[in-house]
């Protein structure tokens, strides 16, 4: 009696076993209800996968390909697709704000240097995001150290 592992069932369905191994699997199937159940399950999954229809790209894609447009940059088509016009406006950057900033730059060239308290900000974000959402998974980041000082 060899050390037969359950994955032999997939190999069995895929016709990947030699005659001796097949006989072993069949022997085990005759004895084990569990193996029979797993076989049925895997057969069904395998069947569903093999029954998945072929899919095809849009005709424009093939038209482009057959027209001979060489794409040398794998990401170029993706980036081209993602480039899109902006649809929103920044709300508060009105003329008044611009004027304030311009005046500020002229009058006070030196700006205060600020080092954001990153750890504290991540906690504030975690706290707020845990409201109206899953609490534990949102607060979990507060409970662990993670940001070097």
């Amino acid at each position, binding site marked *: 009696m060899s050390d037969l*592992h359950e*994955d032999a069932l997939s190999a069995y369905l895929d016709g990947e076993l030699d005659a001796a191994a097949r006989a072993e699997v069949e022997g085990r199937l005759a004895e084990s209800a569990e193996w029979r*159940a797993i076989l049925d399950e*895997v057969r069904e999954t*395998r069947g*569903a996968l*093999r029954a998945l229809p072929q899919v095809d*790209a849009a005709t424009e894609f093939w038209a482009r390909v057959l027209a001979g447009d060489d794409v040398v940059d794998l990401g170029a088509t993706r980036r081209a697709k993602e480039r899109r016009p902006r649809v929103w406006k920044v709300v508060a950057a009105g003329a008044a704000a611009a004027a304030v900033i311009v005046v500020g730059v002229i009058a006070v060239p030196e700006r205060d240097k600020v080092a954001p308290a990153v750890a504290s900000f991540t906690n504030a974000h975690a706290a707020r995001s845990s409201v109206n959402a899953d609490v534990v998974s949102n607060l979990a980041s507060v409970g662990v150290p993670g940001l070097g000082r």
Partner: protein
Amino acid sequence: MADGIPTWEEVARDHGRFLYTVAYRLAGNEQDAQDLVQEALIRVRKGLERYEPGSLEGWLARIVTNVFLDEMRRRKRRPTSALPDDPDWVLPPAPAADEASRELPTDLQAALAGLPEDFRVPVVLCDVADRSYEQIAASLGIPVGTVRSRIHRGRRLLRGVLTEGAA
């Protein structure tokens, strides 16, 4: 076609759907699948000179897989063969012998896309591209035994989709 060697255009026309299907099941989304197919066709064009008539679809499947894996490696800069250490990817308990699971598959594609890549690639190559374990092992550079166990485990992980189908 001359001497049994197809032209690049013939490959694209006659086998494009096969190429795209494998690419789509591997990549999980349209845009990446299109990129994969285009890159694969570039390699096909270059490789046709050396192509020896045989299993064309096998050759194409291998090219698409290599493109996919190259892209994964490019994105990760590390070996793809290591399975993530993830104890929650546990197989469902073996069904009771008399339990009927006659539900039709729903959203199997989404489930495939959710599978870790180390399971997804062998399953797609076996059940979508119809490659043998030997061919898959050669394509991925892993032992046949590993191919077998990943296919089996990948199929069992997908089983949940067949029985949990949404209304």
